[in-house]
């Protein structure tokens, strides 16, 4: 059970840091809101556009938010301390992954509410399906995002590099969730996309922790 304790410790540390600095988290939510307002205004707020605006905004907000996952390690040089603790680096991955899942889920809930209001979408009637789709997508984004948060830890211009790295790699998740959200709102299923995101999520969860250990090596 020690492994689970370590994972939980990392998760609660990251979430606590986010909560303490929640002004910055609020700023991230504001940016996401701005993206939605902007897109909605420029492209028109027909209900049909809602899933696209939602997931594009989600992708860009994730790009902004994910570097924050390793912000403490960068700023306070907490990385050496973190790595000194006994236990596999994989536990650090899972801890941060869970923290990111929670943060992205909160973000998604906020964005769904906003989009529902601005685009006049009946979210409540399709809530279970939307929640399922959302979780599916968040898991994929968080799996890749945690790895990339580690990658940009030791790199200059980390905030600039994140979109270049994340958006191409996370494209299947964004595209898939977009179509699945459309389908959920229309009350039908889209098996193909479930398989796509399922494969993506599974592969990411298998491969990223291993690669994360490589990324966290001291030089």
């Amino acid at each position, binding site marked *: 059970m020690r492994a689970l304790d370590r994972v939980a410790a990392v998760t609660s540390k990251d979430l606590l840091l986010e909560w303490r600095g929640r002004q910055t988290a609020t700023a991230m939510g504001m940016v996401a809101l701005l993206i939605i307002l902007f897109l909605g205004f420029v492209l028109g707020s027909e209900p049909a556009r809602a899933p696209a605006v939602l997931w594009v905004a989600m992708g860009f907000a994730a790009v902004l938010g994910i570097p924050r996952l390793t912000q403490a390690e960068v700023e306070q040089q907490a990385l050496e301390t973190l790595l000194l603790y006994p236990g596999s680096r994989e536990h650090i991955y899972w801890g941060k992954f869970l923290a990111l899942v929670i943060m992205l889920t909160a973000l998604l809930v906020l964005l769904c509410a906003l989009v529902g209001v601005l685009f006049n979408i009946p979210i409540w009637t399709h809530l279970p399906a939307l929640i399922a789709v959302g979780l599916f997508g968040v898991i994929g984004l968080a799996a*890749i995002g945690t790895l990339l948060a580690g990658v*940009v830890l030791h790199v200059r211009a980390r905030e600039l*590099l994140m979109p270049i790295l994340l958006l191409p790699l996370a*494209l*299947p998740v964004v*595209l898939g969730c977009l179509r699945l959200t459309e389908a959920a709102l229309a009350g039908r299923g889209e098996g193909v996309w479930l398989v*796509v995101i399922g*494969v993506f999520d599974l592969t990411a969860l298998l491969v990223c922790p291993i690669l994360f250990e490589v990324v966290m090596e001291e030089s």
Partner: protein
Amino acid sequence: MRGQSFLGGAALGFLAVGAYVGLVASPPDAFQGEYVRIMYVHVPNAWVAYVAFAITCIASALYLAKRTPVYDYVAHSATELGVVFTGLALVTGSIWGRPVWGTWWTWDARLVTTAVLFFIYLGALLVRGLADDPQRGARLAAVVSIIGFLDVPVIHYSVVWFRTLHQPASLTPGDTKMALPMLAALLLGLLAFTALFAYLLTLRIRLARAEDTGEAA
């Protein structure tokens, strides 16, 4: 060195023959006219880009497993060449599309996936260049290449199904059967550019080796 010069000479020869067949000896297409000749450089460029990608991934995986510098030289070289040839594939594809379909860009799945591939290559190079130190840069680039390689098939099918599940597929290049001289031109092009790629790769690996020991000294 001898082998490298031979390879370079062979590549040049193939390219010359390929250019002749592609530009002069082969007939124009029934539908596209003369513009089909662009295909004889576009498709080989895309082919080389994907071969380079495969080499990058294999070399990256080997480097992470064994940590021998030579694998990193290969991965770095293949990534740099991949950027060049992916860029060329996108540009030639765009130039091909303009007169044939009247548009600089189509959201054809292959073009979009190639564009995404360009960004993955670029990401790997940037991560390598912007990292704290070269060794870490090599490791991070390897990680990006590997995760990219695993993702590209998923990306490709995502793009295909994103557009075509709801609307019929647009015209895709090279779907129709080809007349023999045109097929010959295409195959010659593939051979020529593969030889060129092999030559450039050996050259670039030599450069990587020279630059590395230079720094260490």
